[in-house]
């Protein structure tokens, strides 16, 4: 496939983001005309509490912010993990990092640590995501090369292990704790708050800045460690920086919305076909593309069974799983 002009791709992503945002704000049980969105939001931020102002300002706008940020975080993380593992199948949910994050979070609730302050659960998610990502990297990487099979298999093994332990903890927990855990695990975008959006924003800004500083090193690293060392990249250091940041990002995203699968797989992969493998461009485009995918997925999740609402992860999985299988079939012949 011919590469597209970057200007076109970024233009399209920008337009899709605007349309997605407008629809996300406008549609729902209460339909608000697009031209009313800005005046309604304006009224909310000036302290007016009429229905439309509250629906926009207190419900849909924070939900939009959280959805877009989580999409951006997962997609950029997918992009950099694919570069580190030199493997287009890497994705936080596929290689078990997301389930690792869930396990850490559930453990902090079980051990009563979540009572201490509101940061212990996200930190638990981050730490266990970090452990999983390093263990999988250790297991799947032999002589600097990560085989697709050992990556996917160790990912499956760790996902299953973490999920089983989560189930075990759930079944042993007292009812009240269990509800708290389930609420956390199910996540979803329902009830997203401005506070959630702001802390996500803080984490993601830092994380994406780190990704961007490592983009050129990742470019060289994707050609192999010897090539990388020959031009002055420190492969181990680059990998450590990226993996720690990835765990932080996944921890933050899972804390906000629970596990949402395949966003980090589909988005960077498609964009790499259009934009080529250079990571700097790819990371920025993935941030936009991830936000777009999450907004439209959430739109479907909210509208398809109105007034009931599906978990957005169901929609991303319905899109992502077939795509993943398609990739697996094509994998043998493709260049990274």
């Amino acid at each position, binding site marked *: 496939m011919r590469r597209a002009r970057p200007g076109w791709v970024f233009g399209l992503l920008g337009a899709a983001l605007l349309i997605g945002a407008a629809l996300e704000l406008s549609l729902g049980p209460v339909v608000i005309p697009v031209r009313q969105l800005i005046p309604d939001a304006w009224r909310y931020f000036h302290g007016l509490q009429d229905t439309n102002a509250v629906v926009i300002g207190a419900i849909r706008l924070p939900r939009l912010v959280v959805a877009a940020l989580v999409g951006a975080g997962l997609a950029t993380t997918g992009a950099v993990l694919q570069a580190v593992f030199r493997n287009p199948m890497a994705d936080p949910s596929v290689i078990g990092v997301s389930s690792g994050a869930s396990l850490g979070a559930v453990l902090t609730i079980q051990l009563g640590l979540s009572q201490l302050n509101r940061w212990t659960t996200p930190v638990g998610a981050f730490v266990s995501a970090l452990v999983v990502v390093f263990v999988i990297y250790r297991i799947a990487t032999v002589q600097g090369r990560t085989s697709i099979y050992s990556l996917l298999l160790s990912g499956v093994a760790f996902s299953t292990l973490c999920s089983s332990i989560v189930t075990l903890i759930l079944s042993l927990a007292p009812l009240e704790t269990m509800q708290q855990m389930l609420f956390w695990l199910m996540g979803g975008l329902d009830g997203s708050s401005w506070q959630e959006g702001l802390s996500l924003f803080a984490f993601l800004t830092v994380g994406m800045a780190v990704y961007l500083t490592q*983009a050129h090193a990742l470019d*060289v690293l*994707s050609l*192999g460690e*010897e090539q990388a060392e*020959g*031009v*002055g990249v420190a492969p181990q250091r680059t990998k450590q920086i990226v993996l720690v940041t990835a765990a932080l990002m996944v921890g933050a995203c899972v804390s906000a919305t629970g596990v949402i699968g395949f966003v980090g797989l589909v988005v960077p992969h498609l964009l790499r076909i259009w934009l080529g493998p250079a990571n700097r461009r790819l990371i920025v485009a993935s941030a936009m593309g991830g936000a777009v995918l999450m907004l439209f997925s959430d739109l479907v999740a909210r509208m398809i069974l109105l007034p009931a609402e599906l978990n957005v992860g169901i929609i991303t999985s319905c899109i992502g799983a077939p795509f993943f299988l398609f990739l697996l079939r094509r994998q043998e012949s493709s*260049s*990274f």
Partner: protein
Amino acid sequence: MDRTSLVLEDVAFADILEGIRANWSGGQVVGLVGPNGAGKSTLLRILAGVRRPTRGRVWVQGQLVDQISPKLRARLVAYLPQQIPDDTAFTVEQYVEMGRFAHRTLWGGLDTASRAAVDEAIERVNLLPLRRARLDRISGGERQRAGIARCLAQGSPIILLDEPIANLDVHYQLDILLHLQTLAEQGWLVVLAIHHLEFAAQYCDRLLLLHAGRIYAEGRPSDVLSEQALQEVFRVEARTYADPYGGHLRVSYST
């Protein structure tokens, strides 16, 4: 450029290399020759600082190679591994730009000096028409030239190349070797692993002949590539003679 120097003090690596000593300064092309498995690639990796020797020390421009930062090392030594990736969608130009990694600005951009170095390197290996072609869509020889361009773009005074002419047709073999000679004349130190003995004799100022991980001989090509060495190291019967046109060493293999 007169400080360019590469010194090896009694370098050993596992059971692959033993007792390697050398002291090379800028302004010459040094050829590493020897049969497969003699340790040429491992020695180059150690010179590049990519592998740590298990014993001994390597000094680059008066500094220990494993004690300088990767970026500084890359500014002093450019290293091109034997395998140029053939499964990547990066373009020739993007690949050559990677040679400027150690020179990138704080925000990762390429300054005008870097741009010029990239353009010059691509032009030097005659890849201008293919600069936007993907590495996985060009021939093995073109990829090899892209690799050499990446190395040249790096602008380091010491260049280490692992069999840089292996996949090239004779035109580009000669072209690349001549260019390496020109660089040496300008003060660069070029060290390359090379299998083609006659080219090694013709284009290298010095040769280091490795045999089972040890130095068999080191010096001027005509001294190193003796008939006895060819027999003992390469296990071939051969006569050597001076080329009637150029005077450099020729090898006639007897079957």
